[in-house]
């Protein structure tokens, strides 16, 4: 089954990437790294014309904005 990248993000447990940034294309994590910029540059090099969704996977701690 193929999800849009946002639906896949909402439904999937990414805890194995906790503390990292990931790039999601369809229903796959296609890049991960320590910062947004690092992942964005991987996406530019390897998936230039495709819509990759980039997000941070938070560590398992409570958040206060």
């Amino acid at each position, binding site marked *: 089954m193929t999800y849009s*990248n*946002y639906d896949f*993000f*909402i439904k999937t*447990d990414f*805890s194995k990437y906790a503390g990292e940034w990931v790039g999601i294309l369809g229903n796959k994590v296609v890049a991960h790294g320590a*910062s*947004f*910029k690092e992942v*964005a*540059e991987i*996406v530019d090099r390897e998936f230039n014309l495709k*819509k*990759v*969704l*980039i*997000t*941070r996977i*938070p560590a*398992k*701690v*409570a*958040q*206060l*904005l």
Partner: protein
Amino acid sequence: MFYLFKFKKEKFENKSTLRPKIKVLLSYKDKAKEVIAILDTGSDLNYIPADFADYFKLPLSEEIFKAQGAEHEFEYKTSKIYFKLENPHKSYRKLLEVMVPVKTTMHKDIILGTEFLKDFIVELNYNRGTIKLTETKTQ
């Protein structure tokens, strides 16, 4: 016209919580990236971490401002970047001011505060797990 999103269920310690995370397209000049941003009705301005400004090569204000974070004051400069939301029928796209921290990183996520949210009727339905942003004016 409205845009629908869902809460992201995330774990902390032995519990789970629902966080209002939406997909936005950020763009500036020849660069664009789809990213996840978190909605925060308690933030006056929008916020991006410094490495976003670096990646998009955003021009920053010369003036440095001070803001109160959850616990500490921090210094920031301002810039502007395009935010775009899409649904199958329409899109919202607007150049919005953002805070960019200097020296200390206060947050790691993109935060969409009042400066963004004021363009919408914002409905956070924790029971259904849905987020509905309805535009209040034509862009």
